[in-house]
């Protein structure tokens, strides 16, 4: 079979979505795919570009991965723009000189920022805001700046202004039009937005035209029409976008009057073998500057290439977003331009809320809406608008504050099957219902199956409603039971144990469980008991509940021997202690390795040797490192201000304090922490459950990071904390996690599943929204106060020591545990090696 040659020019968000869609279909095999990508890296999430300034890395924002393309069998040419299309011979030539022929060609070249031709606009301190490289340049320039100006008061301009503010600059917005966000908002909305944004410290200059930019005393002077001026250190242009259509133009494809590659309903350009999708495409004389319509074009084009029919007939441009912390929403015909349109407006000047609905003349259909300051009604209004649902008798109720809680709400049930729930991935209510009926019985499974809510995330609340309602309709109950022996979630069990002061597994089983328990509920309950009452794992009622590692307070290795990991708080260790580790390892012939957690692991101890080894370590001042427990592992530190020329706080001292405070805390899964002495972040705090990074003024606290199987960057939780507040927040955070997480759920996954996410977590921990912070702190104080080194207790208790006999009836060692030497150290012998040793030839 001869494959069709398919070329995609542009690897932005839409180009990537196209390839991802194609790769997911069996028809992928029919094509030989080549992708030209002008940027130095594959597609990334431009929508969340600003988060690059808030700590997300280029990797976090990446959408297309090089390995992924390789797996798909697509050829990806990075850093290589296409420079010409020879339509006659169907050949594309690139900057580097590559020539590739095509049968079908996809243009996904996106758009570029429009820079008004103001004299001086090419100054090196003038920037645009579109790529990661743009942001790098802005960041670099901001280091020596105090003031920044954004030219353009649209959606992106305000986002850029926010970024400048976050970079510590005094921010200004210069807008030519009389108001901000004039595309999405009407006059009233725009006015209120301006007030709110000025309250936040961003100066807005509306109705202002810039006539000249010139350098003066090392700064930039902006000359405005009407003799006004402003001095700044850098300028970011965000005055709109223009379709990237140069290539199409030189190839002779039909363009719109003001640019844009003309396409029909099948996304075909004036050449039947060439398609255009995303922000470079002009449909019905309109450029869609949002990602969702681009995704729809991409999906449709894949369908068409696979021989199916799919028509693009325009897309909804409604948006809901938060700009500088102000909620803004715009739906449909926000300006009420349609004939006979009527408006209902609600203004609350005191709390700064503006809402306006546009209805048809009869007040039956919702044509559009604008809201500033409060977008709680957005989802509901959008559904009325998109699905043509008839408005209630008194439509104003939809935007009025619920005086008596009686505002009519549109349940998920009222939506037609065709209602779009997730516009990013074009998932309808019908798709979701189908996936639930097909066996998905949790929100997570529905997300995986349909991709709903995995784009901008704006639809998550609505998606949850639809899923819940559908599950209920099927009479299904989501089964969150811990295991067959406890018809309760971990959180419920935690609560019961706490409220009823239950002290043993048997008591809990009798009151709330059934049967005899298993390897799931026993360790879970043991962990809950430990989190609450902190008794030794070897106390009689608990000893049979533990996983082997907890029982023997060491990690079992593949041949049944154990590893020994003493605590080395903060990774700081004296030479004398280091020598002891070496001596003990030598004496017992243990394999020695520095771990990824800044401490030393001694491997290959036999069960009966563990107490002796620990006695020697404890005599030398060591404590258990809990490497075996679902507990605090290590607090990694960097050397910090004591030695490092960049350090701004004593990160080692803080790491020691933190590690000594939380050591021994039992939790749903292991907990890792780190403290760095400055933003260079040598302790990798942003990959930890709790990360602390020193600032000039104190500490920044990051939470819910994870390395391991699914790495997650920690979120910035609070900034510039003093020592006391830092510890207070960590106390509360950890206890709240311990209380509410599911079994074996790291903080990262816990946060991702927490309704309300990071904002909610802040409300609970910082604002004490639930009124539980005193209790959380008291609970932590109790744990801290009752800490014991479990090994120290064990080696002094003959009853506990009995547990460490290899055989109950003889002192012989287990002769099946055999080691051989490698690189000067022991390692477990392989099976063949054991046979050889047992029967010498």
């Amino acid at each position, binding site marked *: 079979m001869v494959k069709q040659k398919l070329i995609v020019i542009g690897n932005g968000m839409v180009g990537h979505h196209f390839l991802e869609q194609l790769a997911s279909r069996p028809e992928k095999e029919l094509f030989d795919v080549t992708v030209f990508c002008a940027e130095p890296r594959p597609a990334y999430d431009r929508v969340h570009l600003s988060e690059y300034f808030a700590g997300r890395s280029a990797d976090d924002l990446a959408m297309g991965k090089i390995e992924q393309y390789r797996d798909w069998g697509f050829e990806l040419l990075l850093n290589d723009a296409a420079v010409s299309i020879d339509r006659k011979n169907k050949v594309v030539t690139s900057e580097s000189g590559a020539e590739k022929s095509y049968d079908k060609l996809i243009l996904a070249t996106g758009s570029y920022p429009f820079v008004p031709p103001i004299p001086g606009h090419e100054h090196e301190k003038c920037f645009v805001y579109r790529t990661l490289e743009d942001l790098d340049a802005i960041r670099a320039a901001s280091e020596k700046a105090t003031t920044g100006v954004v030219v353009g008061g649209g959606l992106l301009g305000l986002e850029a202004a926010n970024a400048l503010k976050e970079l510590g600059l005094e921010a200004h917005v210069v807008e030519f039009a009389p108001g901000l966000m004039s595309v999405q908002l009407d006059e009233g909305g725009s006015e209120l937005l301006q007030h709110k944004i000025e309250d936040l410290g961003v100066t807005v200059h509306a109705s202002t035209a810039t006539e000249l930019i010139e350098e003066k005393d090392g700064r930039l002077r902006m000359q405005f029409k009407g003799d006004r001026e402003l001095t700044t250190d850098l300028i970011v242009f965000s005055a709109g976008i223009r379709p990237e259509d140069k290539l199409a133009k030189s190839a002779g494809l039909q363009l719109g009057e003001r640019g844009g590659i003309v396409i029909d309903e099948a996304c075909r350009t004036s050449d039947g073998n060439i398609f255009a999708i995303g922000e470079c495409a002009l449909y019905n004389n309109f450029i869609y500057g949002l990602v969702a319509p681009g995704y729809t074009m991409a999906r449709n084009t894949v369908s068409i290439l696979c021989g199916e029919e799919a028509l693009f007939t325009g897309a909804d441009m409604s948006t809901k977003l938060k700009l500088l912390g102000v909620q803004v929403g715009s739906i449909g015909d926000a300006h009420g331009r349609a004939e006979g349109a009527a408006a209902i407006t609600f203004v609350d000047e005191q709390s700064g809320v503006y809402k306006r609905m546009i209805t048809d003349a009869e007040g039956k259909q919702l044509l559009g809406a604008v809201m500033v300051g409060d977008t709680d009604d957005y989802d509901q209004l959008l559904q009325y608008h998109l699905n043509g649902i008839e408005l209630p008798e008194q439509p104003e109720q939809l935007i009025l504050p619920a005086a008596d809680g009686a505002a009519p709400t549109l349940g998920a049930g009222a939506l037609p099957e065709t209602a779009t729930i997730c516009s990013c991935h074009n998932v309808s209510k019908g798709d979701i219902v189908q996936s639930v009926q097909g066996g998905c019985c949790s929100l997570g499974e529905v997300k995986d199956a349909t991709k709903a809510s995995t784009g901008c995330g704006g639809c998550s609340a609505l998606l949850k409603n639809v899923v819940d309602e559908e599950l209920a309709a099927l009479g299904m109950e989501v089964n969150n039971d811990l295991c*067959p*022996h406890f018809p309760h979630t971990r959180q419920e069990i935690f609560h019961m144990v706490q409220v009823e002061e239950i002290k043993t597994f048997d008591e809990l089983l009798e009151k709330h469980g059934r*049967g*005899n*328990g*298993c*390897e*799931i509920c*026993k*360790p879970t309950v043991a962990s809950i008991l430990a989190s609450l009452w902190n008794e030794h794992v070897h106390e*009689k009622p608990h*000893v*049979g*509940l*533990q*996983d*082997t*590692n907890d*029982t*023997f307070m060491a990690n*079992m290795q*593949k*041949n*049944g021997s154990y590893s020994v990991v003493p605590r080395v708080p903060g990774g700081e260790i004296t030479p004398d202690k280091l020598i002891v580790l070496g001596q003990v390892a030598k004496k017992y012939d243990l394999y020695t390795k520095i771990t990824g957690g800044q401490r030393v692991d001694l491997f290959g101890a036999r069960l009966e040797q563990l107490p002796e080894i620990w006695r020697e370590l404890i005599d030398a001042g060591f404590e258990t490192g809990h490497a075996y427990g679902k507990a605090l592992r290590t607090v990694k530190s960097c050397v910090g201000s004591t030695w490092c020329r960049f350090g701004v706080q004593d990160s080692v001292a803080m790491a020691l304090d933190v590690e000594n405070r939380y050591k021994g805390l039992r939790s749903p899964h292991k907990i890792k922490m780190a403290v760095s002495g400055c933003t260079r972040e040598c302790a990798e705090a942003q990959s930890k459950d709790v990360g602390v990074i020193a600032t000039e003024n104190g500490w920044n606290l990051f939470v819910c990071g994870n390395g391991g199987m699914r790495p997650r960057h920690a979120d910035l939780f609070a900034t510039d904390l003093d020592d006391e507040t830092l510890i207070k927040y960590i106390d509360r955070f950890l206890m709240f996690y311990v209380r509410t997480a599911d079994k074996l759920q790291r903080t990262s996954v816990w946060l991702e599943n927490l309704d309300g996410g990071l904002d909610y977590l802040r409300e609970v921990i910082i604002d004490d929204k639930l009124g539980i912070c005193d209790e959380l702190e008291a609970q932590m104080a109790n744990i801290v106060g009752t800490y014991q080194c479990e090994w120290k207790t064990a080696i002094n208790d003959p009853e506990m020591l*009995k*547990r460490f*006999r*290899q*055989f*109950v*009836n*003889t002192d*012989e060692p*287990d*002769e*099946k*545990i055999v080691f051989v030497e490698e690189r000067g150290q022991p390692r477990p012998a392989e*099976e063949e090696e054991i046979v050889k040793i*047992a029967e010498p030839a």
Partner: protein
Amino acid sequence: MNQVAITHTQWQPICQQSDLVADSGVCALVGDDSSGKTSGKKSIALFFIPGAEPQLYAIDNRDPFANAGVIARGIVAEVDGELTVSSPLYKQHFRLSDGVCLEDENVKLATYPTAFDGETVLVSTGPEES
């Protein structure tokens, strides 16, 4: 308790009841010791479940999947009403009554008759009981 078996099998006293750990396992070395060498010996896991009937189980200590002597250190787990031990290494379940692995019924650990003689724990390592 395995009263019937006592008359038919070769009982070895292993340890005292106080050496066992309730609802958990310990390990013992059994078998012919006449040679003075341990190589003819077997390590077995003893599980003492006071609330079950019978109360005492003896099963091979060797985990056949990992080829390591660790079964005695597994957690006692009830699966569909049957008592099992879950291997500490890779978590397969072995039925205490007959040693069958629930995840792969072709794999089976040897089991041995057990009994209490007063405080003394007896195990028969002769031909397996049916």
